[in-house]
């Protein structure tokens, strides 16, 4: 009988002392620590496939005297040029810049252009480069007035057949959509004339086998396309002899095309209707609105405040970045003075959203109380304007 009690007490002692053993089989009551690796199946759904224009895609003839219509009635007849080609800047029918987006995401295409007289130095041309002005203004006086513009394909072009630049014809373009007003290579840090477009994505699907999944374009997709060509008007009353002949001063246009993923979903307000995909250039409103000084200049700092209740989803700050050529990017974001890794926030659809597991965000949320604790978040946009949002965290 006594033996039994003793064994009970011993058993109790064993209970209280977990033994440290390896992950292999235990031979007595104790504890074991096991780690297992989990796998995440994921195929990146951001696939880029953008056809950009080839070099020398643009051509144009400046025809102040109307020589083209006088000598070539097939291509420059009265059906296209009722009063002849005098004063016109003419591009050959079926030529121009062709851009096609077969990416899985909508893209923002940016074109930057300027006029120059010398390809090596980027020196300005001696022509008088005007913006989008009425014809009367171009034809007045005897200066070498030039309005150099972009014709851009309109929305009704059949994208299924618009496979290359041959579709860029007078019937398919909106004329004089934007004027190139930058004369000479811009100074460092400045930009030439900019136009931006939003092009829709192509349809994609998940394919592949276990271990090698992919996101590939659905067969037969044509993608979204846009075409551009040069056009414009010149003063028929000016003397253009300096720009012809052996020692002519050149009139050249330098264009640069680049693209990025569209930072916000399609917002119809961002299309201004000038031509297919062209984005309006609205200025940024930041968080609480832009602030200006007495001279009408943007001040370097903007502040605002908002409340956030911990546990109600990710922290989101509404923010207006502007659209088109005026769209701003983010340089840095700091929480309670510490800069965040760019992977820990995203700007989309007019909102900056923050990853809740990021150390500084998590610390600010953990410090929240029912009375609210302030966590200032400072956003520096690409124009070097600082916006500080004083977020009060409640729990």
């Amino acid at each position, binding site marked *: 009988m006594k033996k039994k009690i003793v064994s009970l007490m011993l058993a109790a002692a064993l209970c209280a002392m977990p033994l440290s053993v390896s992950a292999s089989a235990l*031979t007595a009551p104790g504890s074991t*620590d096991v780690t*297992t690796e989990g796998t995440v199946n994921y195929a990146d759904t951001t696939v880029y496939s953008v056809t950009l224009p080839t070099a020398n895609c643009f051509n144009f003839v400046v025809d102040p005297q109307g020589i083209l219509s006088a000598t070539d009635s097939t291509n420059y007849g009265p059906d296209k040029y009722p009063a002849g080609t005098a004063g016109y800047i003419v591009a050959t029918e079926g030529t121009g810049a062709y851009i096609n987006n077969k990416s899985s995401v909508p893209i923002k295409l940016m074109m930057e252009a300027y006029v120059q007289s010398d390809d090596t130095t980027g020196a300005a041309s001696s022509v008088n480069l005007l913006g989008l002005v009425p014809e009367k203004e171009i034809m007045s006086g005897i200066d070498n007035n030039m309005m150099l513009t972009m014709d851009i394909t309109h929305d009704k072009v059949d994208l299924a057949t618009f496979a290359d630049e041959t579709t860029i014809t007078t019937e398919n373009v909106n004329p004089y959509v934007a004027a190139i007003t930058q004369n000479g290579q811009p100074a460092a840090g400045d930009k030439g004339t900019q136009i931006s477009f939003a092009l829709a994505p192509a349809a994609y699907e998940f*394919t592949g086998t276990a271990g090698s999944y992919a996101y590939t374009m659905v067969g037969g997709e044509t993608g979204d396309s846009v075409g551009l060509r040069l056009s414009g008007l010149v003063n028929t009353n000016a003397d253009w002899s300096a720009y012809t002949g052996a020692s002519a001063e050149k009139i050249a246009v330098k264009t640069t095309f680049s693209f990025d993923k569209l930072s916000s979903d399609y917002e119809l307000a961002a299309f201004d209707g000038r031509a297919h995909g062209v984005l309006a250039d609205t200025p940024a409103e930041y968080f609480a609105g832009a602030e200006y000084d007495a001279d009408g200049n943007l001040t370097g700092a903007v502040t605002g405040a908002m409340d956030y209740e911990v546990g109600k989803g990710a922290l989101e700050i509404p923010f207006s970045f502007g659209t088109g050529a005026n769209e701003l990017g983010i340089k840095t974001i700091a929480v309670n003075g510490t800069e965040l890794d760019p992977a820990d926030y995203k700007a989309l659809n007019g909102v900056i959203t923050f990853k809740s597991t990021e150390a500084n965000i998590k610390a600010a949320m953990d410090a929240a109380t029912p009375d609210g604790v302030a966590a200032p978040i400072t956003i520096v946009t690409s124009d070097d304007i600082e916006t500080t949002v004083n977020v009060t965290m409640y729990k």
Partner: protein
Amino acid sequence: MKLKKIILGILFFTAVSVPFQAWASGTLSGVGLLAGKEEKEEPDIYQVTLPTDRDLEVVLDPEGLLSIHEQGKYDSSWSGQIHMKQGKGALFINRSSFPVMVRVGISIGQNRKGTPSTIGLLESDSNVNDGVWPQMYLCAIPGAAKIESMDDFMPSDTNIPIEANGGQELTEFSFLLDRSEYVQDEKTGEYVLADYEDNYDSASFVLGGKVNKNADWSSYTGKNKEHLVIRTVYTIQKQSYYDEQRLYQADGEGKMPYALIGK
């Protein structure tokens, strides 16, 4: 039968220190009756089968890519799920001569050092698809029956959300497993497991749940990926007796979790 043994032990112990009179009426005859029974020697044999480190391999499938593999064609309704790899799961089998409590502790992390995972853990699946950040509702699902291999696993209706991420945190739950019967070999005098099919007790669980199908999970795949590790700590404790009262009591219908200890 088992309860009676305990009473015997306690009574014997306290009888030493307490005057006989205090135990008048009911207990007197109890002592007398029990004293007549023969005491059997109890063997002290430990035999518990535990899961290994490959048994809880999970696959997070935010896009539903597994449907291509399982059904030959992509099906987007498969998106946002957490699956166990085929046939996997945690199984504990007790063949000891005494009951055991199996305490399970689970947490997630990036590595074995306890660095927290950057995947957010949710306590329910209702908002799992909100926002664009990687987050999940990961839960342990205990089995509904006593099984001898994971091939026979049947899930109960109970979901235990895993909310521990990194450090020394653990989400814990426990199973109570009954003892097995041992018989004494007549010739050698050694104790051996009584040879009938049902002579064991077991508990099991799998992992499951949901992941945010609207998030970008690319940082958890490919080279330089952030790893997802599931840490499990199994602690086995010998129990003096098997108390059914400790087991999970459900309030309604549904498949009850087998051997799970209630709160």
